């Protein structure tokens, strides 16, 4: 019921992605905090490609027409979640950057005054 070739492709793809993620964390190119969502997602992909029955089960349970519809929806949703979490992180970073710039400005002003005295 599920093409074997496709299954193998998906499994290989997930393992490759997982390996890439872990390798980037190892080299300190990716912080675990931000990579965790990706790891979770790739792990889910791996499990579903090993046991495709899971996707078929939920397709029926939620009343989707075909499993592909269900998988696409899931893919788009998780992409949206990751994008949203990125927006939140960027907002945090923007706040921190503003605070740091202001602090540096104040410090520069202070140092200039000290130099003049």
């Amino acid at each position, binding site marked *: 019921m599920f093409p074997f070739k496709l299954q193998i492709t998906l499994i290989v793809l997930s393992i490759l992605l997982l390996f890439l993620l*872990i390798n980037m*964390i*190892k080299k300190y190119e990716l*912080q*675990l*905090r931000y990579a*965790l969502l990706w*790891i979770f997602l790739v792990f889910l992909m791996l499990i579903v490609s090993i046991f495709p029955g899971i996707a078929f089960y939920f397709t029926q349970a939620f009343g989707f027409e075909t499993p592909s519809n269900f998988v696409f929806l899931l893919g788009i949703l998780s992409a949206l979640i990751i994008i949203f979490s990125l927006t939140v992180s960027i907002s945090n970073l923007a*706040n*921190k950057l503003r*605070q*740091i710039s*202001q*602090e540096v400005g104040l410090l520069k002003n202070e140092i200039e005054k000290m130099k003049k005295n």
Partner: protein
Amino acid sequence: MKYLKVLGIIPCYNEESNIKQLINELSAYSDQLDIIIINDCSKDKTSQLCKEENVNVIDLPCNLGIGGAVQTGYLYAKAKAYDIAVQIDGDGQHDPSYISELISPLVKGEADFSIGTRFLKREGFQSSGIRRVGIVYFSMLLRMLTKTQVSDPTSGFRACNKKIINFFAENYPTDYPEPESIMALSRNGYRITEVPVKMRERNGGKSSIRAFKSFYYMIKVTIAIVIDSTRKKQIN
């Protein structure tokens, strides 16, 4: 024996109810160590109280979390050429009278890193049930991966020598740093030892690890430790 410069690093976040007492307690040991308080952008009067007590404070312009705050302390220790750095929590859990015992293995040159543990003598506050499960779990995980016995890997009462000050100034984990940093040290071949200490129950403020976050904490730190164990040696 050569005179060693010792620095106490005290990370603080919203500790206005504890900080005064801690500073007073530490002042009794001012001949043994200098202290630096890292105020991690507290929203309360922590910084103000420290200035009133006339102690050395670094006010961070934005909140970095415990890892970033502690690393600031190590950067300071490196810049000022301290020989030994001691980490002391700002919440008053750690009794300063144990500092000399904590640093003694480093002074004698028997170890590079010493962890204050409440479980060796089983005296004082022993932590709550669910926390203990986590501590035992990380202790087992670290023993499996490093073959070193650390009974309290989450302890923030720790001391290190100059080599590790330099190492931590460059590499220090961000979020829940204690267990992960032990892995990183052991991977790089540093000698780790444990010293029995008594801990007190925190008298105010909140622990940085709350119940609903503990699951995330366990997963994250586990992945961090396992990935770190596959990293190569960074020094020597």
